[in-house]
């Protein structure tokens, strides 16, 4: 455990030294909140609704944080470490590559939670957002959505031949999901065709689940989202692990 914590500590430091990861996890979502907040204001999402724009935007931006860590930061670190034979070097020690992989998942989870916390704090302080959901359903939604994003990133690393192809795959899916899932702009603004495409994206279901949990919906109302995100997590993790076992680590 002491060794694992030491590796986590080191990986956390390295994360903070990476401008991209640091900025897009901790700073960018707050900037988005300020930008869209200044454009739309914290007005009701439709006439008569007791939910305001920022109330539904914050959980959506929280999914954006999960996307940055799960679809970009984690897979690109994994792919980079493999390509530069850093895992091989760790395999030639007492700890092995699994410890450092586990540490990277742990660190990205911590950064996701930090990013979401900063976002929530900014939302509360600047726009006094309403969080109607229970802590338990919000936490469960955050963990399940994060697990789904991480598992997709894990699968991309396993499929990608090298850092270049993994980067292409991750960026492509991240931006497609970011713009079509409702994570950056409300999906009610989308035309029907886009809405149909959007329904196939895991991030869309993460956004729906998170918005529902924050709005105080019972999770039983979001059975479809829970099922899809659970399936995505299980299938992508299992497929990723199968591809990983076939990879040449030397």
């Amino acid at each position, binding site marked *: 455990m*002491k*060794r694992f914590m*030491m*590796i986590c500590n*080191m990986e956390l*430091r*390295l994360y903070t*030294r*990476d401008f991209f990861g640091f900025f897009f996890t901790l700073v960018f979502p707050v900037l988005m909140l300020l930008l869209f907040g200044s454009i739309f204001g914290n007005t009701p999402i439709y006439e008569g609704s007791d939910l305001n724009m920022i109330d539904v935007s914050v959980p959506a931006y929280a999914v954006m944080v999960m996307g940055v860590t799960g679809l970009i930061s984690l897979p690109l670190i994994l792919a980079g*470490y493999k390509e*530069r*034979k*850093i895992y*091989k*070097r760790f*395999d*030639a*020690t*007492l*700890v*092995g590559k699994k410890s450092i992989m586990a540490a990277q998942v742990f660190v990205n989870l911590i950064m996701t939670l930090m990013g979401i916390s900063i976002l929530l704090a900014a939302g509360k302080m600047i726009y006094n957002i309403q969080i109607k959901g229970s802590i338990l359903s919000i936490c469960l939604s955050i963990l399940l959505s994060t697990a789904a994003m991480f598992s997709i990133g894990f699968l991309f690393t396993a499929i990608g031949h090298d850092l270049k192809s993994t980067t292409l795959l991750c960026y492509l899916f991240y931006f497609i999901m970011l713009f079509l899932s409702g994570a950056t702009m409300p999906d009610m603004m989308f035309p029907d065709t886009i809405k149909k495409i959007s329904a196939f994206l895991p991030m869309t279901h993460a956004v729906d689940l998170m918005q529902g949990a924050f709005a105080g919906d019972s999770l039983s109302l979001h059975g479809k989202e829970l099922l899809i995100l659970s399936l995505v997590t299980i299938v992508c993790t299992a497929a990723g692990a199968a591809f990983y076992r076939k990879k040449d*680590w*030397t």
Partner: protein
Amino acid sequence: MAQAIVQVEHLNLTYKHLHAVQDVSFSVKPGEILAIIGQNGSGKTSTVECVEGLRKPDSGSIQVFGKDPWQRRSEVYKEMGVQLQEAQYPSKIRVEEQCKLFASFYERPADWSLLLTQMGLDEKRKRPLHKLSGGEKQRLSIILSLMGRPKLLILDELTTGLDPEVRQNMWMSFETIRKSGVAIIMVSHYLDEVETLADKILYLEKGRQQFFGTQQAFRAYVKGRVSPKEWDENSSLEKLYLMIAPKTTGLTMEGIL
């Protein structure tokens, strides 16, 4: 007679259609230095990676401290330190952070602070790894291989990238380490280094073992393979090796002009 720390018998390793290592056998005892020599692609690194437990051999037996390194890697690494040929470290990590991290893996780590001073890296402690020169990275890599106070050291291209003075110092250091009873397996293209340090030589060619034995026995092996006209009793190891190594053609001006 001391028991062998490493015992390899009839090792075979194949990559898809390439038979990288074929029927290789050797052993290393405490305090011995074994040098593995041969051309590029002769199977040197593949052989040591099997001993390091990083590759699973197709057949044959490998025992390191009496254990199979592929099956019981974490146990073997308690007493084995390695320096890999190509491996890198996270580029933004600092020298002392990397040392602290590796030191945390072991119950009784080496005094890395002293090692940094001895290796001339004391002033580079705070420097990120990507700002180190090739030789400095190589020296750090050697420090990390010594971190667990190993009884077996495997060094793949020990002094590649080091300047002559540092190489000489490195030879003296490893001579001292060997005297303390540590067994060393080194892969090297520098035959002067091999001549200075190695007790035994394993010579590979296209994955096949051509010779395994002492330096003296290697001389006899070469003598038996060259004409009396070619033979010179006082030849250096490098000259001996060149007498028997497969010949390659150098560049001709034809292809350039």
